[in-house]
């Protein structure tokens, strides 16, 4: 047989046809929709995780590994007592307690993430809160409200946070209701668990 252009073309076409035939054979099977659906979902998830390594981790556990977070109060006592069964709104379960603890903790951990990051704070000079307040030391939220002469008014914790963000951190002030401000306050209060309230202490 002469090996010329036509021959080569014929061989390619033959291989192509076999391949297509073989692929069709494969797809002739009727797949189990549940399993395939799971695989497809898994592969999508794996793709997403590869594309977003930051958010794929267990950010709560990771942040807790980095920074000490005081745990929220222990509410298990609420399961004791005899009135619970007869109280529509008082029938708490362990799952309730777990949910409260977990959600509270996650919010505080988010606060810790922002507290320790100059970028998340919106700062422009590379300064984060923990540079002067490691583990939220020296934040003393239990002393607010107090008159702060340099602000010309009685300051709450959020006012002092905003002052710090504007001055040492050189960022834009946060709105009191913004998620970042709420999370920062949460973290700071959490770290001062157990301290006595003493408003007005300078």
């Amino acid at each position, binding site marked *: 047989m002469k090996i010329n252009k036509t021959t080569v073309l014929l061989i390619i076409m033959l291989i192509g046809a076999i391949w297509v035939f073989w692929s069709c054979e494969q797809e002739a099977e009727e797949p189990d929709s549940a399993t395939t659906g799971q695989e497809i979902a898994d592969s999508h998830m794996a793709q997403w995780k590869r594309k977003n390594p930051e958010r794929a981790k267990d950010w709560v556990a990771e942040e807790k590994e*980095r*920074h000490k977070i005081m745990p929220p109060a222990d509410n298990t006592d609420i399961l004791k007592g005899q009135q619970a069964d007869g109280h529509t709104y008082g029938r708490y379960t362990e799952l309730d307690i777990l949910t409260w603890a977990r959600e509270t903790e996650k919010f505080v951990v988010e606060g810790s993430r922002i507290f320790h990051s100059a970028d998340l704070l919106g700062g422009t*000079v590379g300064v984060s809160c*923990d540079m*002067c307040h490691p583990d939220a030391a020296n934040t003393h939220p239990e002393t607010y409200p107090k008159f702060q002469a340099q602000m010309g008014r009685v300051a709450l914790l959020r006012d002092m946070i905003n002052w710090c963000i504007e*001055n*040492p951190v050189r960022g834009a002030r946060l709105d009191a209701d913004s998620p970042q401000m709420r999370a920062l306050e949460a973290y700071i209060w959490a770290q001062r668990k157990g301290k006595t309230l003493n408003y007005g202490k300078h």
Partner: protein
Amino acid sequence: MRKAKHKSVETRHMEERRELYESLKNIDRRSFLKVSAVALGTAMASGLAWPHSFQPASVLSPSTSSQGAESFRFAYISDSHLYKKDLNDRFVRALLRSVDDVNSMDPQPDFVFYGGDLAQLGQVEELELGAQILKDLKAPLKIMVGEHDWYLDMGEKWQELFGEPIQSWDHKGFHFVILNSVIEKDFWTERGMKPMERMMTVAGLDNGMQSSFTVGSEQREWLKNDLSKYSNDTPLIVFSHSPLYKLYKFWNFWTDDAEEVQAILKRFKSVVVIHGHTHQLLTNRIGNIHFHGLLSTAWPWPYAPEGMPELTIEMSRPDPFNPNDGCGNGEVITHTDGLIDKVYSLWNRNPITISSTYTSSWGKRDRPPMPNRPSY
């Protein structure tokens, strides 16, 4: 209306000296120490910033001054945590101010010691900027490494700029040692951290992923060898970035093998350890070792919630409305008995001196002033 005592500094000086010599006659050693300490205390209490010219301690007991140890001064600047100027000018300005402070000293100190953490994230431009600024110092520079300088490239750039992280030398009868006491056990390889991630982890004071500071067995060997040539009487000053004792583990105000290092130093009559990292007034004494902390030029740390040494009289809580409050530089004045006066030159505050009699008397004499704003 108060009547003035018109005495010049010289007159007061001469009177003090005469008083002391009068009392020197026929008294035993204990009363002698009491007299000289009182004279020192009065001068300190008057709030004068410079050490009075007459140092009773130097006349105290000439027999105990060994190997020709002299009284001299060196200055220190520490913990500047520089970013590049475009990002953060405040820290750069503070270091410039320190350099200006030290250059204005009259007379000039024998040398200037830099206590570590020159850069904030160990980056090339940060270290180079710091090196460039420190070049303007008139007196010779001795520099130590801190964790912020080291953990981006494991000290490559720092060593290129500044040489050996571990050194020793002799000066006016004192033996000086610089250690690299921020060695951390490898925590980054198993986590697959990139260099910057490693640096950011170490840079967080309260970041629990990092390991505790150590000196390490290699350095301890080196230290033992280096010191083997010196008698127990030798006045010894050890520079270390981490405190060489265990204060608060969570902030790495801690050296894991502190006991082993202290054991090596135990045989000496007295040892002074001067350490950085803590950015505050800090004083401690363990046996024969007197520990003194350095101020930072960049920002002050709060005091640790537990583990504070008894001897430390804290500085007043810094006021956030003054960005320089709680920061500064300072100097060290050595005495012939091997101990030092540590002067903390805080900006916008009177300097505070922790004198050698304070630590040698276990805090009974020459107490520094109490803070009016205690820390939280």
